[in-house]
């Protein structure tokens, strides 16, 4: 019953592959390699262990295990690594990817189904089926055509998704993941975070206007209403944390919770912050700007291909940023019992291969512990957000605005007064009963 694919010959196929390889080799030797050397000519090479890190040395170090660790040790303390990899974008994107996978599997579990089940079924045993679904989705989105509606404002239409991801990633810079591991440790970190969040409604309205369509326009206006209505309780609820910790620096806020998490004193603020961050994320029950049964897909209606992919990436990076901000503000950041050993492997001098395996000189127990606890708490928050998504319907815009402007603001004020009472009653604050010395 199967019909063979017509006009398939093995010879031409091999010929085409060889032809491709030929061109790749030509391009590499003629263009790429000279380019690399030209760049290396101008770039000052760094010193690693007293040696200049030339490409030859780099390659020999990569091959020789005993000389790999110094390179890594050098690399992870560069500014570029912080911005691009660890506390910065790649870490956030990795958590975002994990969130998508967990979201699909977790919701599927709650809804008595399996979730993504075919991509990556044979990869890591049957327990991890659907692991590569995100890769498949990403490839699909990349390969799709980007359709720009007629009469769209093209520069804004192209710029808005990129701005969305950039702004979401900008929040990530401020999050301290472990002691000393933060991209930019500034004194007004909290205010900067809120200032950056203030850009999102602007981007959404710009994009919805640029789409030149009715449904995105309604969605954009809804987003504007919603985000502005929830911005105020959002900031007010964080303000009580500032009152208790006496600092706007996120690292110092974390250190202030070394004995007590602020959620013990500020449960109402934590609740308000959580609800506001759900609204900020436009997740169910606050996904009015994207309400599909009312306004098709809201402000995302005209997105297609990688534009949609970028906005989704930005949304999930934002999800990570907000969950992490909640952890920093209320759940004590990276604080947690020490469960990692000070050193991996047996003590004393080790053979070179074991040195590499145990990350000798690179591994630092308290930092690993901090990263672990921070990531675990962040995932706890993400799970909570997913649970809320699984059990609730969408609410209507007037109820939403009412909730934002009346109820949540009042609630956050109540907790702020509690915080003030704790400070002036001598319970917390400088010289208080519960203040750690």
């Amino acid at each position, binding site marked *: *019953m*199967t*019909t063979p694919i017509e006009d398939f010959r093995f010879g031409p196929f091999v010929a085409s592959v060889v032809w491709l390889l030929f061109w790749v080799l030509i391009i590499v030797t003629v263009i790429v390699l000279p380019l690399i050397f030209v760049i290396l000519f101008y770039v000052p090479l760094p010193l690693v262990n007293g040696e200049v890190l030339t490409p030859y040395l780099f390659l020999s170090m990569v091959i020789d295990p005993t000389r790999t660790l110094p390179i890594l040790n050098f690399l992870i303390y560069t500014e570029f690594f912080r911005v691009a990899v660890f506390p910065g974008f790649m870490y956030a994107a990795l958590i975002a990817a994990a969130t998508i996978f967990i979201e699909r599997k*977790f919701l*599927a*579990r*709650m*809804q*008595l*189904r*399996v979730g993504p*089940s075919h991509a990556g079924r044979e990869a890591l045993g049957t327990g991890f089926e659907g692991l590569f679904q995100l890769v498949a989705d990403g490839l699909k989105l990349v390969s799709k055509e980007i359709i720009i509606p007629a009469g769209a404002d093209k520069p804004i239409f192209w710029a808005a998704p990129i701005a969305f991801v950039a702004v979401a990633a900008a929040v990530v810079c401020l999050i301290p993941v472990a002691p000393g591991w933060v991209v930019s440790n500034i004194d007004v970190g909290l205010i900067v975070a809120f200032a950056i969040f203030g850009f999102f409604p602007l981007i959404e309205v710009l994009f919805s206007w640029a789409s030149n369509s009715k449904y995105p326009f309604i969605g954009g206006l809804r987003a504007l209403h919603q985000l502005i209505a929830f911005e105020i309780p959002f900031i007010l609820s964080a303000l009580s944390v500032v009152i208790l910790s006496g600092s706007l620096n996120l690292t110092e806020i974390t250190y202030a919770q070394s004995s007590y998490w602020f959620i013990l004193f500020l449960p109402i603020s934590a609740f308000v912050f959580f609800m506001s961050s759900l609204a900020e994320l436009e997740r169910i029950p606050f996904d009015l700007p994207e309400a599909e049964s009312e306004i098709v897909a809201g402000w995302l209606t005209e997105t297609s291909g990688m534009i949609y992919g970028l906005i989704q990436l930005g949304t999930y990076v934002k999800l990570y940023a907000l969950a992490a901000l909640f952890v920093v503000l209320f759940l004590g950041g990276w604080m947690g019992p020490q469960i990692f050993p000070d050193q991996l492997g047996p003590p004393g001098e080790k053979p070179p291969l074991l040195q590499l395996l145990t990350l000798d000189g690179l591994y630092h127990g308290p930092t690993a512990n901090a990263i672990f606890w921070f990531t675990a708490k962040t995932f706890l928050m993400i799970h909570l957000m997913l*649970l809320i998504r*699984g*059990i*609730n319907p969408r609410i209507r815009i007037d109820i939403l605005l009412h909730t934002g402007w009346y109820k949540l603001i009042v609630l956050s004020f109540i907790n702020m007064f509690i915080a003030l009472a704790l400070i002036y009653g001598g319970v917390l604050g400088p010289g208080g009963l519960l203040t750690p010395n």
Partner: protein
Amino acid sequence: MSSTASGFIKTIESGSKHLLIKRFTFRYPEEKLKFVGDGYQFDPKRGVGIAGYRGRHILFHDKCTGCQLCAIACEGIAEAIGMVKVDEQWKHNKKAIMPQIDYGKCVFCGLCVDACPFYALYMTDDYELSAFTKEHLIYTPAQLAVKPKYGGEVQIKIGKMGANHRPAE
């Protein structure tokens, strides 16, 4: 206010409870449902059908008389049945014509089975009929005579942890 809170608590409880309940998904290509009987059949003497799944037909060449009643029954419904010449010699089938069924048109109502008075045309529980071309969906009398092998063995089982699909014991 208290009803709102209790409503939320109940909702969260119900949602998180389902994280522990068995999944109901029926994984089709790996699992196949077990059906009642061998397929829909009809007893012309009593004028009543016999319960079974209505999949593709099975034609008994030794009983078909070429009376065209099935084609007439199908005329106003799907027009899927056409009578074709077969290269066989049967005493009861002088014209040597037998039904040929186009499954691109058939709606699986089974009224052709009801029309057959000679126990020649039944339905089977074979429903996996997909083909690459439309021509492959037309089943000749010789193809219809083949008894399909269908290995469905999964049924809905209800336990304490919810319902799911499991092989019948």
